[in-house]
């Protein structure tokens, strides 16, 4: 049966929910299992003086109750969109922290993902078509090398090269420090933001480009060795048609899911990059939270990451049958 039916959607939805539930449970258990008990932490905080805030947290998360009870409270709060209150920047709610940081992460990750996929497809296809040529060997070799480098290192080199040495781009932050982002006209806003986002995006794009190019190349090679390509040639089709309709259409399909998954993993993909560029996204937020042991923020960010990944997977599952007629929907 082609197309989607309700049964399929429901099944996938339940599956997504299940995965999400597991992730959130892990999120819940981690601090409690690993030995860093929020209740203990709070106790130490209250010893330092902010009694009232320790009380509020305790109440809200029932930290004086048993673990199963805490679990239920945790789930209930999640459903209400309440991720708690930050320890270190009390009384700022975690949700506010996240909503401030999220757009920055989305900005650099989404743009870099789109750019890297587009270029990867182009280069990968070219390399596959020119298999064995210098272009192919060089592109593949360089890509493999880039894949072997720690991705933050590339970021460091870019900062040093284009930021410090050449001085073409700022070396950190999302907007020029000291500027009130709301007080300037929109086009100036765009320029500032773009200017600061350029290096992080470049860094992320280069790193992701390598692996995707290699995958695309091998997809195309795989497809080119299929029998229906031979038959397409036997039909006397023009080379351009064989490439577009017969080869690429098949080669791009697996990449599509990869693309969607990358979008989903967007948030966590940029952690080190954000650190290097002091870019105020979710990644930097998590790292700072870890340094200051701000458990609610860590858990809140992780919960958001889990939600975004599961959601993107679910959407990808819904779209895929629409583009690949072979997929059976049971």
């Amino acid at each position: 049966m082609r197309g989607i039916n309700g049964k399929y959607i429901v099944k996938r939805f339940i599956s997504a929910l299940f995965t999400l539930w597991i992730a959130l449970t892990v999120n819940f258990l981690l601090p409690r299992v690993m030995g860093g008990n929020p209740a203990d932490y709070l106790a130490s905080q209250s010893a330092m003086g902010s009694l009232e805030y320790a009380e509020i947290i305790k109440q809200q998360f029932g930290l004086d109750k048993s673990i199963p009870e805490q679990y239920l409270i945790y789930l209930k709060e999640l459903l209400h969109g309440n991720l708690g209150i930050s320890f270190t920047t009390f009384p700022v709610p975690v949700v506010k922290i996240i909503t401030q940081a999220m757009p920055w992460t989305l900005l650099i990750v989404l743009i870099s993902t789109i750019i890297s996929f587009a270029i990867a497809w182009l280069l990968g296809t070219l390399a596959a078509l020119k298999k064995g040529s210098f272009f192919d060997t060089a592109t593949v070799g360089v890509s493999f090398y880039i894949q072997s480098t720690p991705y933050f290192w590339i970021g460091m080199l870019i900062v040093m090269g284009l930021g410090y040495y050449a001085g073409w781009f700022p070396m950190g932050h999302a907007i020029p420090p000291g500027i009130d982002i709301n007080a300037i006209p929109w086009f100036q806003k765009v320029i500032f933001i773009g200017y600061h986002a350029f290096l992080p995006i470049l860094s992320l794009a280069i790193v992701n480009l390598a692996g995707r190019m290699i995958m695309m190349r091998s997809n195309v090679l795989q497809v080119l060795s299929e029998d229906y390509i031979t038959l397409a040639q036997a039909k006397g089709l023009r080379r351009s048609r064989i490439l577009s309709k017969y080869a690429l259409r098949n080669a791009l399909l697996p990449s599509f899911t990869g693309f969607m998954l990358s979008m989903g993993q967007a948030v966590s993909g940029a952690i080190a990059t954000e650190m290097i560029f002091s870019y105020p996204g979710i990644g930097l937020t998590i790292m700072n939270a870890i340094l200051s042991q701000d458990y609610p923020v860590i858990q809140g960010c992780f919960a958001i990451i889990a939600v975004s990944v599961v959601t993107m997977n679910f959407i990808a599952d819904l779209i895929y049958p629409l583009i690949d007629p072979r997929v059976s929907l049971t």
Partner: protein
Amino acid sequence: MIIVMQLRKNSQSRVKSDNYLVFEKYILKNTKAKIGLGIISFFVIVAIFAPIIAPYDPHEINFIPWEKPSLKNILGVNSYGQDIFSQTVHGTRVTISVGILAGLFTSFIGVFVGLLAGYKGGRTGEVLMRIVDVFLVIPNLAIMIVLAAFLPSMGIFNLIIIIGAFSWLWMARSIRSQTLSEARKEYVEAAKVQGMGTIEIMFKEILPNIFPVITANMVMVVTSAMLTEASLSFLGIGDPSLISWGQMLSIAFANSAIIYNAWYWMLPPGLCIATLGYSFMLIGNSFLDIYANDRGGSVEI
């Protein structure tokens, strides 16, 4: 007499044995693999003889901080006054051991689960893959960071466990899909008919046949383990008492090496990780290429 001579002549002009052919094809005639192995051997030797090769103790704070490379300090001095070259040499040990140990740990689980899921298929396979899928959804780095953040302390052992605990998922998937196609082949049927048990078939029959894929996966897992260690160290989650290439980069960045223009501090560790990782990739990918080549080439368009 004549018959004996005939036989002997036949065996001399006979084709080389199968095992030797495989060895020859994958290693001896495989330039990429040879280069890769060469590089790895180089680093392993450096790791083993680190105390002898490094001119100074890597922790020694005897030198003028931020000194550029000179005859005395080949790679210069870091912000604390330590010799970068000695640190790089000693860092080889940690990085390689974490990489290989975590890689092996990952591989054992990954191969076993992959073989099991692929061979058994049906229910068992489905359930296993569901579990794998659920955990695959969660971004690796994120969960490792979160895990590490909540751990009371981080030693090299914990590091290896954490890396291994999440990296096996990809491998299991890959091995499983290979096993699935092998399981349909006739020699597996024959083994079943002979009464061989599941484990026996998995390891004695199927594994040898997909060995190139397994090896390729293993080497890539080692690379990935090294990179993960570097990332975790960079993010401040590694073991601070160890000197690894990742730690060096982490400290370099934390001490604003960029502003100080200390390219001599930032380049060596990164290049080492990249080169060593690359050598593993060379091996792995050349294996995959040869394996794929055996299954048909492509027509020029």
